């Protein structure tokens, strides 16, 4: 049975590369760093698990033949156990310290704010849609879809209009919450053109499951063309958003996906 689980796991891992919304299918600098960190942790901790299970297996099989021996209230503490205890304690401390250092390092890489971003976008969470506002003189709004230029850092300002939501595009970066009375900032960057799906990761009420968002990464020139077109007759799409939310979450972005992926 365990091997069945492992087999299922293995095949799923193999298919991970084509995941629509997968943290293991990174397409941005930050998501890359996170995936690498994840695999290092998995390898080290997996090894720890194997060693522990090997120890357990050895402990069980060492003296299996004789059973039901009389109890020993004061067994002598044997030398190998003392040595093993010291080794276990030392290696635990070393491994945990190593992982903590890697984690701090990763934290700096992920959160460290670099130079000014090419584009700053405000994302405002609502039950159950995303309002997207392009800042600047010719600002404009979209809903449930963010277009960004490939290869440039984009800062996303996260606020909420009602309850707590969480903004998460696994292929590009980790998630960050949208909290009333607070403004959070997340940097994303896409390496190549495509549509990257994300969805709200903090339970936000009845239709939480349908609160998807799509990041469409365009070649810079194409992005500028699109932006100019949007900005020209500066208009708000917010009033359109609510009625289009479910339709948009369910179908259109996948149409966009096939349009952009090849």
């Amino acid at each position, binding site marked *: 049975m365990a091997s069945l689980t492992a087999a299922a796991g293995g095949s799923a891992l193999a298919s991970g590369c084509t995941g629509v919304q997968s943290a293991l299918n990174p397409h941005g600098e930050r998501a890359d760093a996170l995936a690498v*960190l994840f695999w290092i942790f998995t390898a080290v901790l997996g090894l720890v698990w194997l060693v522990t299970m090997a120890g357990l297996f050895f402990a069980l099989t060492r003296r299996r033949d004789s059973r039901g021996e009389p109890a020993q209230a004061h067994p002598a503490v044997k030398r190998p156990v003392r040595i093993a205890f010291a080794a276990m304690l030392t290696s*635990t401390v070393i491994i945990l310290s190593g992982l903590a250092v890697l984690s701090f390092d990763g934290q700096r890489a992920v959160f460290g704010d670099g130079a000014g971003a090419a584009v700053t976008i405000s994302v405002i969470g609502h039950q159950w849609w995303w309002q997207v506002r392009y800042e600047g003189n010719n600002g404009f709004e979209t809903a449930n879809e963010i277009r960004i230029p490939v290869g440039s850092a984009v800062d996303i300002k996260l606020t909420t209009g009602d309850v707590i939501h*969480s903004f998460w595009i696994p292929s590009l970066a980790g*998630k960050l919450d949208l909290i009333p009375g607070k403004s959070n900032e997340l940097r994303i960057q896409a390496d190549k053109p495509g549509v990257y799906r994300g969805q709200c990761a903090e339970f936000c009420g009845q239709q939480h499951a349908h609160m998807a968002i799509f990041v469409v990464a365009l070649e810079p020139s194409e992005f500028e063309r699109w932006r100019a077109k949007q900005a020209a007759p500066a208009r708000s799409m917010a009033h359109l958003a609510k009625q289009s939310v479910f339709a948009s979450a369910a179908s259109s972005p996948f149409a966009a996906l096939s349009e952009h992926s090849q």
Partner: protein
Amino acid sequence: MSPAIEERHETRDTDLGDEELRARLSRTWGSARGLIGILSTVDHKIIGIRYAVTAFVFLLAGGIMAIIMRLQLARPDSHLVDAELYNQLFTMHGTTMMFLFGVPVGEAFAVYLVPLMVGTRNIAFPRLNAFSYYVYLFGGLMLWGGFALSIRPDVGWFSYVPLANLNFTPGKGPDYWAQMITFTEVAALAVSVEIVVTVLKQRAPGMTLDRIPLFVWTMLVHSFIIIFAMPAIMLASSMLIMERLVGTQFFNPDAGGDPLLWQHLFWFFGHPEVYIIFLPGTAFVSAIVATFSRRPVFGYLPMVLSLIAIGFLSFGLWVHHMFVTGLPEIGAAFFTASSMAIAIPNGVQIFCWIATLWDGKPVLKTPLIFVLGFFFIFVAGGLSGVMLASVPIDTQVHDTYFVVAHFHYVLIGGTVFPLVAAVYYWFPKVTGRLMDERLGKWQFVLAFCGFNITFFPMHLLGLHGMPRRVYTYPAEMGWGGLNLLASAGALLFFASFLLMLYNMIASARSGALAGDNPWGADTLEWATSSPPQPQNFDRIPCVTSGSPLWDQGDDNVVVGGLKVDERELVVTSIREARPDIREESPAPSIWPFLAAFATAVAFIGSIYTPWAITWGSPVVAIVLVAWFWPKTIEENV
């Protein structure tokens, strides 16, 4: 005082032979028959069994919720249940498993076993103990009664504000949730105080600090964690209900409040809660590993120090549940370090258990087999916890199915597997009959396979982007296969509990007779009959070793001089356990039940009008006075 009474009082246990002593003590300590008698009992064993049975009923109820959720998620775009019902289901599942099963089932074993293990006749404050059970029962009935009446909380077991506020969630669901929290926390706090006092002051003479069984040490630390953690959730749930009922502004950022205050208070309780649920599991493991390895657990001192370290560290981790709220970087880094540090005492414990097995010749009975399952699953869950302690990794897996997988590995692996082991292990003590070994091994196969098939794929689902608490997902996401697998596993896992239920019922009727000590164990609960008499021990044992039943052999040294016709027990000093006082233990009383009932009515009423507290308090006060009012003049002597 008439001479007859005088004489009766003077009868001491040293005056009587074994047979007559047993009969007279069991009259003195027994519970009356009839409805009033049933509701008045203060016997810790009866109340412990009630706690356990109630908790198991809630386990099944929470399990059925889980099965419905798994059926819904088995296929993409499924319409078996709608979003509204699904949100209610996961709220009830989490709330039931955490508050109505996870915590109380640990209390159940503590209430039943700790007094037996320390060699006393009843738990400290036995009426408070009865009260706590009824408060727990009423809290659970209120939540599920509300559910049946369609008053259903649907904002998660964590009830984050502002979603749980009145303007986003009208209706009474979250109010029922918040009051149920208050009920069950009152119960847990009461039991913790009883356990602390029982362990500190009622140990059998000679049970010095270094002779306390690891099980009892664990329950002591567990009780202290409850004492320091549960006030946070009581405060938080009271603030939430005030926010909803009388318009306070604690969590409103526009009026000087902050929604993150709720999260801080909730997780200040919420993370220790994990250890509150998990530590009883380690208590079971310590007892079972020792018995089936035929030697005490290796490293008594490191084990006890690890427990205490876990107790302290569990309060320094809560912020790792808030890594994606946009905290200052340095603060988050601190909590990464502390979250990783708690792996060290846990590692020490795992090592000591394995070293014990290595040194002994383990006997592979069902309890030990489930403990082996615990090692396999819990260690994996603990290690994925190290991943979650890392802020950067957490930003990807937080609130995804990876976390769902992680904490089910920790909580089911760490608590439920040892719990099943504990049921097989102590069932003969409680009922006098052994459970069926063959069925037990089949149950293990079902449970182990079912569990891993259910929860291992969830790690992958989380990494592939599936968030928690979604009632459905589009087919295009590619999550269908793994979800189907998980759902199939859930059915297997659920079946394992039905098999256990069958085994319990069948064995209680016709299992093999157990005798006093069927496993040849070393702690005091095995020194008395199975099931134990109301007085627990006919003569209070004197302890001269950490493994009294292995060390003291046939030399049965006891305490003499306790009255036979009064409920007397020996109060001892904290460190040396020297006999100090013959304290009178309270007799059965109906007032704890009535007090719990009055409290329940006042609490439920307060959901509808704050005046219920005003009108309810005097009633509760009157009942409490009646409870504590001395009944006879002799009681004062």
